[in-house]
């Protein structure tokens, strides 16, 4: 590829190649604080390629096709101005389809005193926004998209990629944050407006440190405040649904999730706004930590 960049996010390493300079420049700016990868000394875990739909489309009506080690053959091409998003989606896709060292949970995660709060929920539940806000309020952000559960130790490993903020969450989660940590506003993406937030210096510096899972939170945004304990069986089902590689890991994945739900209490939390959810999380954490 004409342009490329090496990146390490948590335990995973990536080579991002692109036919255009723009997406690589945007990534290089936002990932400047992350450890670089020297391709001469290390083969990255995954390659993502941002390539034209057809060779001549590098210049005319440029459209990005996301390719790489793991691909979705029928993925729709993306506009060149969304190149940063395409790179992020490509990295997520490699993790979701290719990562085997941990149980990959579609969950956000924050840490305090060596203990992790794992937050899982459907798109729109607010897990990214909540993790981003907690990451600026005394917690270490471990990741807004994936939590990596180690079958051997039961610990959770961080994957603190750029936080992907959507629509109304953008203003809420970027309030008071310096412009250098905020990416360009991408309008009209398949998920509406998107802006990326760079995790703070502590989150990046400590991204290799795992944490012991202490609480599993299942939030739902847009409801009156309420919370209820979630039984082990229900938590197990929710985690298998939230994992992209549970079936591929076989017995190791089964053992890891059984251990997780037996040792980590789970709470379903409904909330109407960010002030409510922040207060509720601190109160619930006070009960378990």
């Amino acid at each position, binding site marked *: 590829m004409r342009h490329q960049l090496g990146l390490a996010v948590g335990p995973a390493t990536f080579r991002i190649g692109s036919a255009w300079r723009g997406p690589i420049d945007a990534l290089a700016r936002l990932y400047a604080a992350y450890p670089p990868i020297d391709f001469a000394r290390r083969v990255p875990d995954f390659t993502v390629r941002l390539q034209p739909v057809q060779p001549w489309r590098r210049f005319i009506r440029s459209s990005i096709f996301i390719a790489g080690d793991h691909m979705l053959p029928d993925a729709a091409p993306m506009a060149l101005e969304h190149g940063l998003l395409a790179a992020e989606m490509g990295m997520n896709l490699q993790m979701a389809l290719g990562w085997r060292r941990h149980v990959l949970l579609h969950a956000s995660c924050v840490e305090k005193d060596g203990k992790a709060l794992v937050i899982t929920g459907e798109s729109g539940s607010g897990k990214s926004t909540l993790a981003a806000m907690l990451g600026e309020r005394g917690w270490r952000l471990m990741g807004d998209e994936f939590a990596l559960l180690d079958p051997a130790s039961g610990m959770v490993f961080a994957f603190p990629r750029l936080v992907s903020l959507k629509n109304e969450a953008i203003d809420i989660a970027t309030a008071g944050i310096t412009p250098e940590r905020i990416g360009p506003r991408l309008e009209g993406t398949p998920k509406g407006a998107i802006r990326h937030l760079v995790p703070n210096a502590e989150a990046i510096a400590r991204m290799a440190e795992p944490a012991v899972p202490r609480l599993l939170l299942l939030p739902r945004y847009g409801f009156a405040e309420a919370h209820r304990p979630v039984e082990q069986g229900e938590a197990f089902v929710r985690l*298998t649904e939230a994992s992209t590689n549970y079936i591929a890991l076989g017995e190791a994945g089964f053992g890891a999730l059984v251990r997780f739900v037996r040792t980590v209490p789970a709470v379903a939390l409904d909330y109407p706004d960010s002030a409510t959810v922040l207060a509720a999380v601190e109160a619930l954490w006070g009960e378990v930590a």
Partner: protein
Amino acid sequence: MTYRAEAPDQIIVERLGAIDALYHRRSGTTHLVAAPVPQILEALGEGATDVAGLLARLAARFDLDTPDDEAKAALEQRLAELIDLGLVRGER
């Protein structure tokens, strides 16, 4: 019909509160099952038998308050489901 349970070393059973999570090694599949399925598998694990024999084993362990015919019909239904999951084999 004679029913034979999957070999015990092929199934891992973990109690998770009110339900059991069951990992079937041969198929790599996870099943979440509630009573009486784990009890049926355990009783059948003593050896292949027919519905009457299995019912007798279960009656020896639990107080079954349903009449025999109803219990047999219900048991046959559960066994048919377990055959579909690959956890029990039915032999004519």
